[in-house]
């Protein structure tokens, strides 16, 4: 019974923790400009993250070691360092976007300027990282993140014409948009769905919670049920924007616009719920990205890491998180728009995807670490297909950004 409850809780937190500021902004931007013409990217991204998260969780559970510990050993320190550099920088950018996202969500609730909320958000993230147990942290923010279901509720309350909506989901390029803009946002959506930190957090979290081979079924349930439902939440954000913002010619450039369809559909109560969900989702993602900064660096250099250790026993791990938060805060203090940071972070995530996912595929096929739990033929075939997609997205990201003028 407790095992079942554990699986159920895991699935709920996987759904609630799936959406972050990148998903909130990118899906709303795409819905308000392209309708559902880019909806096809979401299932592609969700299947990709399922394949690799499941793989990295299995690596951690079977080998008893997290991703970066093995990457350095398997690829050697030099190639591992290149991998670390790219992953750490992208992670830092994502952390900056998430802290900015918390401040923007708190502004929606309070009306107080985000610049004043940013230090508060960073300190709150640090306190939770310092004091709160891993399982409590993960479950509380994951469950509160479920408030974003308000987007799905809003879709039904808006009483859409379902057949017309389904017709809009055909992957056709709108004549009003340049092809480079269409593909730029396709890459951005793909990058938002497959953000690298999710894999670092998933595999290191498996070590934090002491997963073994016997926990693999629970891990699979979290990924195979929780992630697709999280993907549906992302889709509902795009549908809300398609129904309310697109017909009015509103192009999403701020978080306040993302919440407008929910207010239109369900009034003040649903709006308050969705704002709570936004705060929880961005706060949860800020915790995960801050932890991922510590995980990647500590695992590469072989320092003691993890929240299962006291901070005094993993001082460098905690120091990296504090410094990362301070750098993120410094970037935001320059006055840069957090939404712009978010848009850049998802595109640059796409750029760094091969560096994250190729090593996982290599390690998951290495019998030295995995024994008889190496990838099966089906998983490898899917992994390879995704590697090609990831490479294509990575190569196209910067040229598309330049040609489309960052999707202008």
């Amino acid at each position, binding site marked *: 019974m407790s095992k079942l409850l554990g699986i159920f809780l895991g699935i709920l937190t996987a759904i609630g923790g799936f959406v972050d500021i990148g998903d909130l902004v990118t899906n709303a931007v795409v819905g308000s400009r392209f309708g559902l013409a880019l909806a096809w990217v979401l299932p592609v991204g969700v299947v990709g993250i399922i394949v690799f998260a499941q793989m990295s969780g299995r690596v951690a559970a079977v080998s008893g070691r997290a991703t970066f510990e093995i990457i350095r050993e398997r690829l050697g320190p030099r190639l591992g360092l290149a991998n670390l550099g790219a992953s750490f920088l992208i992670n830092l950018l994502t952390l900056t976007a998430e802290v900015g996202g918390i401040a923007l969500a708190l502004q929606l609730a309070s009306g107080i300027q985000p610049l004043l909320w940013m230090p508060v958000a960073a300190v709150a993230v640090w306190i939770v990282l310092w004091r709160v147990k891993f399982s409590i942290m993960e479950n509380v923010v994951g469950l509160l993140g479920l408030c974003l279901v308000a987007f799905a509720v809003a879709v039904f309350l808006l009483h859409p014409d379902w057949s017309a909506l389904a017709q809009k989901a055909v992957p056709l390029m709108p004549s009003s948009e340049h092809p480079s803009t269409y593909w730029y946002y396709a890459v951005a959506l793909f990058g938002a769905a497959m953000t690298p930190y999710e894999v670092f957090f998933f595999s290191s979290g498996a070590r934090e919670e002491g997963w073994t081979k016997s926990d693999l079924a629970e891990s699979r349930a979290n990924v195979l049920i929780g992630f697709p439902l999280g993907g549906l939440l992302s889709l509902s954000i795009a549908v809300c924007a398609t129904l309310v913002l697109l017909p009015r010619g509103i192009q999403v450039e701020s978080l306040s*616009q993302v919440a407008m369809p929910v207010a239109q559909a369900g009034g003040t109560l649903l709006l308050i719920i969705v704002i709570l969900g936004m705060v929880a989702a961005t706060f949860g993602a800020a915790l995960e990205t801050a932890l991922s900064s510590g995980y990647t660096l500590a695992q590469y250099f072989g320092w003691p890491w993890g929240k299962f250790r006291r901070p005094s026993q993993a001082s460098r791990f905690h120091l990296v998180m504090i410094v990362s938060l301070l750098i993120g805060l410094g970037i935001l203090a320059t006055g840069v728009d957090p939404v712009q940071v978010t848009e850049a972070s998802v595109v640059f995530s796409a750029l760094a995807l091969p560096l994250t996912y190729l090593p996982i595929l290599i390690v998951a096929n290495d019998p030295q670490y995995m024994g008889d739990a190496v990838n099966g033929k089906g998983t490898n075939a899917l992994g390879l297909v995704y590697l090609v997609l990831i490479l294509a997205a990575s190569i196209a990201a910067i040229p598309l950004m330049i040609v489309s003028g960052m999707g202008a």
Partner: protein
Amino acid sequence: MTTRRRTAASCISGCLAAALAAALTGCVPDSGGVPGRLERGLSSADSSAQTALLAVRQLSEGKTTPQHAHTAIDDALTKLGEQQTELASIEPRTADERRWRRSADDAISSLDPALKDARSAANGEAGIRWSQARRELRDASDTITHTKREIIAQAGEAE
């Protein structure tokens, strides 16, 4: 690591850093020439007008909180300011382009007082009614849409 690999690695990281800096500072080339940039600026301004209109409507109907409505209108004002700065940076080369830029500037400028009145109405300040704020926003939006259509048509003819 060989010298060649090291050079390649530093080239890649240099390009990445430059691209990131360009993205964050907004220094990414724009397409479509002067008319394209004006059209995008006007579309963005119209989006601000429609955002404020929706925020005012939702607030007057009790569908949103004052904090959310204020934030939405403030964000629209901020974006409008950015559009005006962007417009000022456009350097027209022909007489047509100069005329288009002037009319785009006039259209976008007409939105500024409308947004400020919308903010006053949302704040419950005396003297500005919901209906007046909505009408001003609609008028400004109409002017922007009209200007955009004119520029698109004239730029098409000029080609």
